[in-house]
């Protein structure tokens, strides 16, 4: 037995005219032909469809697909005090771009950012919905800092702000919180700072389960310390970060892991039996019953039809693990 989950984002449009409603709505909004409320309605329709696709595939712990996020950085940063949003910057090695936050003063939480989105998604999902936040280290590292002149102070203020957001999400009923720190695959030496940030976020989480997720690469050199961080669950990209596999096999983990084994950056469909076999290789090293199988990162980098296929592969692989275990 192993649970199934996803990492975060999901393709917001597909290739049929029906599946392109949001693209049309955004274009019309940009031309001033529809209102902001009309646009939100179009986004909500897509969120419902995305939840349906995850529910239909049998994913146990889902997300809202981050459908209303312009990108992973500016969606959160733009609602914090003293942050402005600037031009496009390249997002890791993905051939996608984010609008770069510029920090002009002391960063602080002003108002709930994700709470309404989470509530709407949970109301429309049979499965539990995980609230996903970009971590303070990644947010700080990808921003342009014009105020703090030091990554540590910025990261910790961002962590305080995100901690308040997590409290608000938990008060609204979220039982699963995920903090994404992909920057750790590029800067593993920053793990102590990520941990300090996570401690502040953890303070507000109550009884919710807190997952720390890294993707876009491997974390083999910091795997042991990663498992000791103040998160309840550790999520790992095991495709682009395949090198982490040996560290899990060697050290094991007392904490549940999210095994990102389904390639979210390639259209090629995996054989569920092969993925199940890999998961079962870890039997004895980790607790499969409390762990999850997932895509290697958000599914947004794939065309929608291929993303659906990946969800199907994910569930089929988990079922095979269940039968074999």
């Amino acid at each position, binding site marked *: 037995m192993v649970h199934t989950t996803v990492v975060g984002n999901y*393709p*917001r*449009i*597909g*290739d049929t005219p029906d599946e392109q409603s949001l*693209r049309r709505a*955004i*274009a019309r909004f*940009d031309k001033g032909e529809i209102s902001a409320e009309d646009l939100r309605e179009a986004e909500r329709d897509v969120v419902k469809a995305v939840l349906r696709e995850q529910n239909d595939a049998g994913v146990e712990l889902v997300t809202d697909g981050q459908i209303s996020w*312009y*990108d992973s950085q500016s969606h959160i940063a733009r609602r914090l005090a003293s942050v402005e949003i600037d*031009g*496009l*910057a*390249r997002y890791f*090695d993905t*051939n*996608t*771009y*984010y609008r770069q936050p510029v920090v002009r003063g002391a960063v602080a939480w002003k108002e709930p950012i994700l709470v309404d989105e989470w509530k709407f998604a949970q109301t429309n999902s049979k499965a539990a919905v995980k609230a996903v936040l970009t971590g303070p280290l990644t947010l700080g590292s990808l921003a342009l800092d014009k105020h703090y002149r030091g990554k540590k102070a910025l990261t910790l203020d961002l962590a305080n702000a995100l901690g308040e957001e997590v409290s608000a999400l938990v008060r609204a009923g979220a039982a699963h919180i995920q903090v994404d720190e992909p920057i750790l695959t590029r800067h593993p030496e920053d793990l102590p700072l990520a941990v300090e940030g996570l401690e502040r976020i953890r303070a507000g989480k109550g009884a919710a389960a807190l997952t720390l997720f890294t993707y876009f690469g491997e974390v083999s050199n910091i795997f042991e310390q990663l498992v000791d961080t103040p998160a309840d669950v550790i999520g790992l990209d095991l495709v682009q970060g395949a090198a982490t596999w040996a560290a899990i096999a060697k050290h094991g983990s007392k904490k549940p892991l999210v095994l990102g084994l389904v390639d979210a*950056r*390639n*259209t*090629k469909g995996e054989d569920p039996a092969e993925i199940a076999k890999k998961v079962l290789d870890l039997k004895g090293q980790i607790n499969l019953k409390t762990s999850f199988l997932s895509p290697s990162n958000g599914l*947004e*980098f*794939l*065309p*929608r*039809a*291929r993303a659906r296929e990946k969800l199907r592969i994910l569930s089929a692989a988990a079922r095979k693990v269940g039968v074999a275990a």
Partner: protein
Amino acid sequence: MTGLLTTSVGSFPKPEYLTRARTKASKGELSGQGLRALEEKATAEWIQFQEEIGIDIPVDGEQYRGDMATYFAENIGGTEISGLVRSYGNRYYKKPIIVDELRRKGPISVDWFKFAQSRTKRPVKGMITGPYTMMDWSFDEFYGSRDEACLAFANLLHQEALSLEAAGAKIIQVDEPALSTRFDELPLLVKAVGTVTNGLRAKTILHTCYGSYNEIFEFFNKLPVDQLDLEMSNSGLDLLDRFRREPLKKEIAFGVVDVHSHVIEPESLIRERIEKALTIFAPDKLYIDPDCGLKTRTVGEAQAKLRNMVAAARAVREAHRLA
């Protein structure tokens, strides 16, 4: 001494009649022939515009392309085109998928090069989407190795470069916007671009943009091309000091207008940028162009930016008594 020749990076915006025609064609409401006629009309108009304002080295404007990688992949065997994936905001593109061994189907951009060259006496650039970018911007379901996929593209694109040269191209540009994606793969990029440019008599250019140039700086002199084309106005003006300390042993095409901004840079600002560049680079090694392709601007914005750019280059030339 001559110098400060003006050029463009590659793409220009499509006129509205062409955008509408492309939508119609994608719905099957316009024939391939009908679309081609309008692409030719738009290409001819852009060549004429470049002639009028006096650009020294024109480009065909890429009116026939949707996405630069997708267009090349559509004309290479062993690929399929995927559904839409997001680039940013509300922009999507159809990403190539490598499903089999890559094979040459025939020339890719040679007909368009010939069409454009037949309309001007100035030397039109031959344009190739580079092998590293083709690999990085495709899903690979066949090779299972980034090196292998990249070098397979490089071999095919070398054939394309030879075809462009045979068709009369005196200048061939290899576009590698993905160059700064993974620094650990820069040796692969050097090898792949070297495969494309190997043995060419034409002048070769490598274009890149969105760079963290500081981290790739040491590779600049290793790139197997005669000229580097860099985005300088958006992110690179800070780099000038580094070029002062560590001279570039190649020609440089120096981007002087920001392609991501609606603001039309005044001639005086562009003149300042060119003057700054002249403190470091010899005028005969210094080419003046926009930061990147202008396709995301409106036709009016693109033309205004190019007009000011050419006027500024001309003014600096006169001030320095360059022919």
